[in-house]
């Protein structure tokens, strides 16, 4: 009969039991799961069962992780994601969420640039931890990303972005995510990038502060290579702060637009 072991199809004898499978396939496994249920005694297997065998404390290899992602996402899709090279300008509320989403889906390469350090006030919406306060954000983010998927190549630059260094930082990527905080910096980056990189995509964000309705945050295609996520109007200002849920919604609009562009070369 056919079963799945760690997301890979496997032919086994029709009377095969869980422990027999463990003894032949993965002797040291100490956590056995059948169809999502942890199992602590031997039992017969059935056709189509999805069996996961883990050894506590052992990390899966990059190849295993890749196989798991390909099984989840389908190999054709995963191949396209894996080839993706994406830049993230800013590692705050938007950038840290976008980076985590893209690393979870198995992006090939990320280039992340920011000049800030993690401050206590960032923890209300940015993907950092108490013990990372004071660290440069790009270093803290790389640590967190490598704990999720060490197979992704993460390039970090701890510096301020301006017209003088955009080409050097982002010349090799396919898609840039604008994840700045200040409106004039957002405009500067967008103007420069679209004018100087006619073959690359830009996914920017504007209007994501407060706790107004989730569904006012949208993705729009401003022009061929320029996508904009947000409600367009909710600026961060006194009385309307930046908060994790809505910043996360906008960031995930950006991440999903990147994903669509990587897979389909267009997004909607």
């Amino acid at each position: 009969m056919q079963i799945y072991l760690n997301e890979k199809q496997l032919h086994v004898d029709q009377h095969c039991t869980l422990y027999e499978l463990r003894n032949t396939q993965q002797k040291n496994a100490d956590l056995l799961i059948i169809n999502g249920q942890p199992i602590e005694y031997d039992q017969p297997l059935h056709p189509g069962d999805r069996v996961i065998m883990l050894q506590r404390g052992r990390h899966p290899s990059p190849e295993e992780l890749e196989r798991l992602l390909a099984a989840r996402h389908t190999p054709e899709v995963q191949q396209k994601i894996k080839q993706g090279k994406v830049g993230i300008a800013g590692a705050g509320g938007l950038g840290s969420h976008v980076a985590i989403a893209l690393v979870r889906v198995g992006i090939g390469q990320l280039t992340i640039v920011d000049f800030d350090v993690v401050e206590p006030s960032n923890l209300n919406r940015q993907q950092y931890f108490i013990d990372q306060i004071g660290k440069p954000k790009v270093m803290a983010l790389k640590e967190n990303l490598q704990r999720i998927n060490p197979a992704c190549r993460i390039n970090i630059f701890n510096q301020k972005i301006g017209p003088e260094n955009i080409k050097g930082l982002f010349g090799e990527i396919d898609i840039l995510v604008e994840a700045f905080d200040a409106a004039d910096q957002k405009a500067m980056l967008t103007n420069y990038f679209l004018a100087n990189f006619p073959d690359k995509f830009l996914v920017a964000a504007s209007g994501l502060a407060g706790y107004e309705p989730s569904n006012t945050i949208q993705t729009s295609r401003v022009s061929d290579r320029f996508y904009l996520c947000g409600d367009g109007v909710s600026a961060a200002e006194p009385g309307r702060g930046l908060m994790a849920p809505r910043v996360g919604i906008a960031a995930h609009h950006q991440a999903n637009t990147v994903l669509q562009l990587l897979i389909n070369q267009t997004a909607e």
Partner: protein
Amino acid sequence: MKLTINGESHEYHEQLTVTQLLSRLKLRPDQVVVELNRSILAPETHNNTELKTGDVIELVQFVGGG
């Protein structure tokens, strides 16, 4: 002069540069992205770019937060 701005038709009675249009619309010049007839317009050229009838303009005014 007829302009299409963000997909909507607008009529102006006098000649305008991009800078003057932004000021009319109360947009902050350092926070906008202007696309004129599908090309990005460099900010330093806003002041001497005269608009003409039939121009298609996309304006994005960024707001802060990230």
